[in-house]
C-alpha cells in the first residue's frame, strides 16, 4: 500500500478536526477535548516522525518527508517547517485546553483549525509569494475568530484584516525585486551594480510589508485594539501562533536575500524598529485603564525584543530571536486566560470595575501578575533569559538603549501595579461569583510553566537550532 504523504496528512487532519468540532460545537467539553487531542497528536507526530523514511501511524503508513505536487506547486515538509508546526500545534493544544472553561465564541475551535490548516500550508509551500498569500488568506477566518459571538465593535478585526491585506502588495513586490536580482548573471560586471540596486529596492517594501504583518510600531496598533475587543484566547492565538507564522515567510525571504543579514545598515534599522516598538509598547502599557489593552501593549513591547535580536545579525542572534518567540507564547496565553476569567466573572476588565476582585479571584489575579511580569522580562519568569540576553547584547553596542529597554519594562510593571492596586481594594464584591475551578487549575499549570521556562529557558533550544540550520541563512 502506498504511504500517505505527510503534507496531505498535515493539511487534512486539521480540516477534519474543524468539521468534527463544528458538529459538536454545542458541547464545549467535547469540542475542547477533540481539539486538544487532535493538536497534541499532530504536535507529537511533528516531533517524533522522521522525514527521511516512512512510519506507521495507527496502522497506516505515512511518509512525512515525501513531497506532494498540487496544481504544479510542490508541498514539502522540511526540518524548519517540522519544528514550526510542532510549536504551533503544541501552542494550539494549550489554547484549546484553556478555552474549554473560558468560552471564546461557539466557533472558536473549528475556526482555529481552519486557520491552523492555512498555517500548515504556509510551512509546506516552497514559494515565498504563495506562502505570503496563504498567510494573508488566514486573516479572514481570523476576523471570525476575533469577533467571536459579539455584535460589538469591529475595530480590532477590521484593523487586523486591513494590515494583513496591505502587507501583501508590498511583500509580493519585494519578492519580485529579489527574484529579478537573482536572475541577473552573476559574473557580468556592469550588471552587478544594477542587481545590487534592484535588491536594495526590495528593502523598503519588504520592511513595510513585514512591519505590517509582524505588527511593528507604528503598524502594531491592531494588537491593543484586538486585545480590547476580541475574546482573549483568540487574541492570544493570533499574537502567538499568528505572529510565529509571520516570522516563517520572513526567514524564507531572508533565505532568498541573505545579503540583508550581512548589511550593517539594514540590521541597524531592524534594531531601531525593535527599540521603538519596545518603548512604545512599554510607555503605553503604563497608562492603560483596562487589562485587555495592557495585555495588548505588553505583548507589543515584548515583540520588539524579537526584532532587537534579529538585528544583532548572525546565527546565534536568530536562535535567540526564535527562542524569545517561543518563550513569550506561554506568558501571553497565561495573561489572556486570566483576562478571560476577569471578563467572564465581572463582565469587564477595566481597572475601575475590578475593585476588590482580587479577593474573589486570587488565582486569575496572580496569573495576570506572573504573565505580565514575564512579558516585562522579570527574573524567574519565561521572559527573563531572552530579555537579559538581548539587552546585554544591545548594551554592548549602545548602553543608552539598555536603559530605555529597562524603562519600557518598568512601564509594563507600572501598568500592572495600577491594575493590581485597584483589584486589591477593600470593597466587598459579592456580585462576583467564585473563581472557576477547572480554569483556575489550568491557569496554575500554565503559570507553573512560565516559571519553569524562567528556570530552564533552553527547553525549546534543540528544535529551534534545527530550524535555524534548516533555513541555512549563514
Amino acid at each position, binding site marked *: 500500500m502506498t504511504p500517505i504523504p505527510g503534507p496531505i496528512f498535515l493539511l487534512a487532519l486539521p480540516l477534519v478536526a474543524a468539521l468534527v468540532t463544528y458538529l459538536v460545537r454545542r458541547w464545549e467539553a467535547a469540542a475542547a477535548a477533540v481539539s486538544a487531542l487532535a493538536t497534541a497528536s499532530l504536535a507529537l507526530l511533528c516531533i517524533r516522525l522522521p522525514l527521511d523514511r516512512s512510519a506507521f501511524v495507527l496502522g497506516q503508513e505515512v511518509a512525512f518527508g515525501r513531497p506532494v505536487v498540487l496544481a504544479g506547486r510542490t508541498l514539502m515538509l522540511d526540518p524548519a517547517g517540522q519544528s514550526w508546526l510542532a510549536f504551533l500545534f503544541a501552542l494550539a493544544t494549550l489554547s484549546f485546553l484553556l478555552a474549554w472553561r473560558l468560552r471564546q465564541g461557539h466557533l472558536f475551535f473549528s475556526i482555529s483549525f481552519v486557520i491552523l490548516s492555512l498555517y500548515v500550508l504556509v510551512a509546506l509551500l516552497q514559494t515565498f509569494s504563495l506562502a505570503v*498569500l496563504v498567510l494573508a488568506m488566514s486573516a479572514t477566518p481570523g476576523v471570525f475568530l476575533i469577533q467571536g459571538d459579539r455584535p460589538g465593535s469591529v475595530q480590532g478585526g477590521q484593523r487586523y484584516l486591513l494590515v494583513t491585506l496591505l502587507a501583501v502588495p508590498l511583500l509580493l*513586490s519585494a519578492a519580485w525585486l529579489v527574484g529579478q536580482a537573482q536572475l541577473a548573471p552573476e559574473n557580468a560586471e556592469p550588471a552587478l551594480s544594477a542587481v545590487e540596486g534592484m535588491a536594495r529596492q526590495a528593502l523598503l517594501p519588504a520592511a513595510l510589508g513585514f512591519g505590517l504583518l509582524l505588527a511593528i510600531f507604528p503598524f502594531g496598533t491592531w494588537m491593543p485594539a484586538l486585545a480590547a475587543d476580541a475574546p482573549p484566547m483568540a487574541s492570544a492565538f493570533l499574537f502567538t501562533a499568528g505572529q510565529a507564522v509571520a516570522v516563517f515567510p520572513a526567514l524564507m525571504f531572508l533565505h532568498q536575500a541573505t545579503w540583508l543579514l550581512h548589511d550593517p545598515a539594514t540590521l541597524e534599522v531592524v534594531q531601531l524598529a525593535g527599540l521603538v516598538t519596545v518603548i512604545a509598547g512599554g510607555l503605553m502599557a503604563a497608562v492603560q485603564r483596562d487589562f485587555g489593552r495592557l495585555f495588548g501593549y505588553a505583548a507589543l513591547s515584548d515583540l520588539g525584543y524579537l526584532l532587537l535580536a534579529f538585528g544583532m545579525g548572525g546565527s546565534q542572534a536568530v536562535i535567540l530571536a526564535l527562542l524569545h518567540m517561543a518563550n513569550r507564547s506561554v506568558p501571553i496565553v497565561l495573561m489572556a486566560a486570566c483576562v478571560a476569567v476577569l471578563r467572564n466573572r465581572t463582565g469587564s476588565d477595566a481597572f475601575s470595575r475590578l475593585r476588590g476582585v482580587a479577593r474573589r479571584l486570587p488565582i486569575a489575579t496572580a496569573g495576570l501578575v506572573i504573565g505580565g511580569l514575564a512579558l516585562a522580562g522579570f527574573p524567574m519568569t519565561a521572559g527573563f533569559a531572552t530579555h537579559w540576553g538581548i539587552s546585554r547584547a544591545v548594551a554592548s553596542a549602545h548602553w543608552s538603549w539598555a536603559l530605555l529597554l529597562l524603562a519600557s519594562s518598568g512601564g509594563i510593571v507600572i501598568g500592572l501595579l495600577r491594575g493590581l492596586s485597584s483589584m486589591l481594594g477593600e470593597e466587598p464584591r459579592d456580585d462576583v461569583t467564585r473563581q472557576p475551578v477547572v480554569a483556575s487549575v489550568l491557569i496554575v499549570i500554565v503559570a507553573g510553566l512560565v516559571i519553569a521556562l524562567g528556570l530552564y529557558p533552553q527547553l525549546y533550544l534543540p528544535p529551534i537550532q534545527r530550524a535555524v540550520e534548516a533555513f541555512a541563512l549563514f
Partner: protein
Amino acid sequence: MHVFSNLIAFLTGTPALIGLLVTALIIFLAADWRVALAALLVQYILVALALTGHVKLELVLVKLLTGALVTAILYLSARRIRDAGSSGPTEETGPRFFGLHLGWSAGPLGFPLRLLAALLVVLTTVRVFGHYRLTVVPMDLALMAFWMAGMGMLGLVLSGHPLRVAVAALTILAGFDLVYSTLEPSLALVGFVSAFYLLAALGFSYLTSVQTLASNGAGGEETPS
C-alpha cells in the same frame, strides 16, 4: 465579430485608463454605497481590459470573474443590512436621484474637502511621474496603479465603516494587480491572488454585517451611506 474585436482593442487603450482614473475618483467621492460598488465593478472590468494586451486571455477572464464575485459579495451583504431596516440618517434625509443618495457627506469629510484631498493625490502623482524611470512596467499602467493606490489610501484614512474601507482597500489591490499581473503572469499565482481577494471581500462583508447589527442594537450609530 470584427467590429466587436475592434471595439475591445480600442477600449483596452486610453479609454480603459481614463475609466480607471474616473472610477477611482468616484469610489472616493461617492456618498451612496451603490454608486461606490458599481464603480468598483466597472473598475475591475477596466483593469481586465487594460491587461488584455499584456497577459493571457484566460488570466484576464479569471480577474474579471474575481472582480464580479468580490463586488457581488459586498453588494449582497450591504443589501441585506439595508433590507434589515438599517439605513442611516444620511440616506433617510439627503436628496435623491433615481433612488441614489446625492448627499455630500461620506465619512468624516464633506465633499469640498474630499475633492481637495483628491487634488493633492493628483499633484503627488504628477510630481512622482515627472521622473518615472522604471522600464519593466509600461508607464500608463504604473501611472494608473499609483493613482488608484493613492485614492485607495485616502479612502482608507477617511473611512471608518467596513464597507467603505473594503472598497478603498480593494481599489489599492486592483491598482497593484494592474502592475503585478504584467510582471508575474503565472496561473497558480493569479489563482491564489483571486482566492485572497475573495476571502478579503468575505471578511469585510462579515464585518459590515456585524457593525450594522451592533449599530442597530445601539440605536444606529453609523451605516454605510
